[in-house]
């Protein structure tokens, strides 16, 4: 039995006006184990706190109950008070007699009676409290950024800038991501490469940053401050340390018929390739699916022409293990596949393209050298129709339910650029709504309409039929209440964007939660937008939701700031109110693991003593206190009651129930 001290606060008149505080203190003094009971005007004041501290010493208190305002208000204050007096801070319980008593009742007798009961419940609980100490866990001062697009690069640069080591894992042979494929950026129309490539070079040259290109994360173990990650470096059949990026091999390779993924298949490349001139690292990669040497053992041209001797056909996937304190997810997005929307004839005509393909057709480094030509016949298009919201804002069965956010702006950009470069083209944009909430965004859209004469039509395209080299577009003009029939030369579809396919398995490895659309969920939609609910996992860029470049960069830096804050600590203080299994009762059934939102529970096979000097091997749960946040889901999922929650144990809660119902 604890030696309990009860301190009833008046809170000026806030409590004392409706609760007879003296009577409460008097009645509670008779509760079992209570050795001291008093009341005071302001418990949280300096004098009040000193009174508590003196009483702890004088009466040798082992438990303290404070009847005052909500624990959400001053629980921490009083815990610190008691800690200074040498009492474990978790031996303090608060009875909320202000918000949940004096403020809601008018009748003094009723309120006093209730305050006594609330006090009793707190006393009953404190009798079962046990001293708890917060554990600490060391922080590995290194961060991992998964994904090397603009989000990942920005995050890595900011973290490195603060003096911490960062690794970037990028699945493609070069970092840069989607932004490398974009021609111009809205709303300023500066060239994407001009602003991105210097950042890529910065990242490559920064000695705090290590880039694992053509690599993937294959396993993640551990927890915040102590992640153990295995990175798979895929075989590129070229020794990165030797390759100079001269590009001779990419000119001599006889296998010329490989669809160029960088240009979205609009032209071909060789089997050995460097995705584009400014690639980082500028190292060649052999596409094993097309390389004759790797497939049949005959060829070897690249090896012969390589003066650096960098080609290595025997290279294998390599696995690297590394430890990190924090992980940033920056896996980005992809446009969706358009198979489901055949009314737009995407698969029937090469002149129906996605917006990203259109970027390549407009790009000076693209397949047409920057001249806008129809993919089918290489002619200049004279009528171009843009269709917005293709696959966005749909019912679940028809596509993505969300707005892809960036399409309105890039379509305005495309339309504007067409009219600027080729004033003789007619440009139609079919929209449902034009969404331009961003700095200088609406002005940009209005310029497309007013200065560049883009025809914005409120309505949707119903079907596109390729006929005699033209694309017959049938669409609605809802404001004009007419149906339009346009003979177009090109149709550009603003395809919805979706999270990269690698995100889902990654989320499983990280035990980070995702929404139904496979976007990572943030810890709080407003207040913690760049953190995953899983401690130590941070979110950067479009993996969390559709975003344009300015927003992505802002979030990338925000995530970096959070990572720096974490890595700056030498130790993390853990929440001491964690779950704890009783191994003797644990069935090892995995129920607790299934409901744990943080992946804090693992299992080990452990030997136990059985009857008659035998030993029994049993599977038992273990909780990692550094990861457990103390929600208690496991305690209820556990069929045998082996799992309990420190600070909110079964017995403590039942004692409160008993005291209240008494």
């Amino acid at each position, binding site marked *: 039995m604890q030696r309990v001290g009860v301190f009833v606060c008046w809170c000026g008149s806030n409590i004392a006006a409706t609760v007879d505080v003296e009577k409460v203190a008097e009645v509670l003094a008779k509760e079992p184990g209570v050795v001291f009971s008093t009341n005071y005007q302001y418990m949280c004041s300096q004098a009040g706190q000193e009174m508590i501290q003196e009483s702890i010493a004088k009466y040798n208190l082992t438990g303290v109950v404070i009847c005052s305002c909500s624990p959400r208000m001053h629980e921490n204050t009083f815990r610190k008070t008691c800690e200074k007096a040498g009492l474990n801070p978790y031996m303090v319980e608060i009875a909320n007699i202000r918000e949940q008593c004096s403020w809601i009742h008018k009748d003094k007798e009723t309120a006093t009676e209730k305050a006594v009961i609330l006090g009793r419940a707190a006393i009953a609980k404190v009798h079962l409290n046990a001293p708890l100490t917060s554990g600490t866990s060391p922080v590995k001062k290194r961060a991992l950024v998964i994904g090397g697009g603009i989000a990942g690069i920005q995050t890595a640069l900011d973290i490195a800038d603060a003096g911490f080591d960062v690794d970037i894992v990028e699945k493609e042979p070069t970092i840069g991501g989607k932004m490398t494929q974009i021609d111009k950026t809205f709303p300023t129309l500066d060239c994407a490469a001009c602003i991105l490539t210097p950042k890529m070079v910065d990242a490559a040259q920064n000695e705090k940053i290590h880039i694992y290109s053509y690599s993937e994360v294959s396993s993640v173990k551990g927890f915040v401050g102590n992640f153990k990650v295995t990175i798979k470096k895929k075989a590129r059949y070229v020794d990165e340390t030797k390759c100079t990026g001269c590009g001779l091999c990419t000119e001599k390779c006889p296998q010329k018929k490989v669809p160029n993924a960088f240009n979205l298949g609009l032209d071909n490349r060789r089997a050995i390739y460097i995705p584009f001139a400014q690639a980082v690292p500028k190292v060649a990669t052999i596409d094993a699916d097309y390389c004759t040497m790797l497939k049949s053992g005959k060829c070897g041209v690249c090896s012969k022409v390589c003066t650096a001797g960098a080609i290595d056909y025997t290279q294998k996937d390599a696995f690297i293990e590394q430890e990190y304190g924090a992980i940033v997810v920056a896996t980005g997005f992809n446009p969706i596949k358009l198979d489901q929307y055949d009314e737009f004839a995407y698969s029937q005509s090469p002149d129906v393209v996605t917006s990203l393909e259109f970027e390549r057709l407009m790009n000076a480094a693209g397949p047409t050298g920057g001249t806008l030509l129809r993919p089918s016949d290489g002619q200049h298009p004279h009528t171009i129709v843009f269709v917005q919201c293709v696959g966005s*804002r749909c*019912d679940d069965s028809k596509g993505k339910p969300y707005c892809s956010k960036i399409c309105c702006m890039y379509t305005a950009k495309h339309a504007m650029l067409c009219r600027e470069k080729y004033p003789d083209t007619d440009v139609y944009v079919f929209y449902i709504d034009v969404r331009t909430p961003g700095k200088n965004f609406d002005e940009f859209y209005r310029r497309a309409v007013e200065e560049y004469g883009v025809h914005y039509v409120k309505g*949707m395209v*119903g*079907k596109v039929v390729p006929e005699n080299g033209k694309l017959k577009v049938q669409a*609605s003009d809802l404001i004009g209440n007419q*149906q339009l029939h346009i003979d177009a030369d090109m149709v550009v579809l603003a395809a919805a964007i979706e999270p990269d396919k690698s995100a889902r398995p990654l989320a499983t490895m990280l035990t980070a939660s995702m929404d139904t659309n496979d976007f990572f969920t943030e810890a709080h939609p407003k207040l913690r937008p760049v953190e995953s609910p899983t401690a130590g996992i941070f979110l950067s860029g479009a993996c969390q939701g559709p975003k344009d470049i300015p927003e992505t960069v802002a979030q990338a830096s925000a995530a970096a700031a959070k990572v720096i804050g974490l890595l700056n600590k030498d130790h993390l203080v853990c929440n001491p109110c964690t779950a704890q299994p009783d191994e003797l009762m644990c069935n090892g059934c995995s129920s607790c693991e299934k409901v744990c939102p943080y992946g804090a529970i693992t299992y080990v096979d452990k030997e136990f003593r059985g009857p008659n000097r035998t030993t029994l091997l049993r599977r038992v749960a273990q909780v990692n206190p550094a990861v457990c946040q103390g929600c208690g889901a496991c305690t209820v999922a556990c069929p045998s009651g082996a799992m309990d929650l420190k600070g909110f144990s079964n017995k403590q809660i039942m004692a409160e129930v008993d005291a209240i119902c008494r």
Partner: protein
Amino acid sequence: MIDTIKRISGVNPRKCMKCGKCTASCPAFERMQFHPHQFVDMVENGRIHELMNSEGIDFCLSCFACVERCPRNVEPAKVIEAVRLAVVRQQGGAHLTPDEIPALLDDELPQQAITAAFRKYRK
């Protein structure tokens, strides 16, 4: 009436985001006074009698292009069909109410006729 159309069609017009893809897909556009997206909108806003009296409701081919293309599964063709049904059901709208009956009674009139007429005209 709105509820009747909603019940017959099983369509929730509030799901419509007014994109007009239904109207863009409609092969009978020229013949219809009101177009698929207007049907959805007007049902939502209770302008059903206008729809019932409009020209060309029978020109909808029920080709279901609008249903197929609608990004939000609103199914405009079912709304149009429901309006047609509403037109059919209101035909012969001469209603018979119980207080009109005494005036119509005469000795020759068989009881059965009253019941039959009541059955027929009460809807």
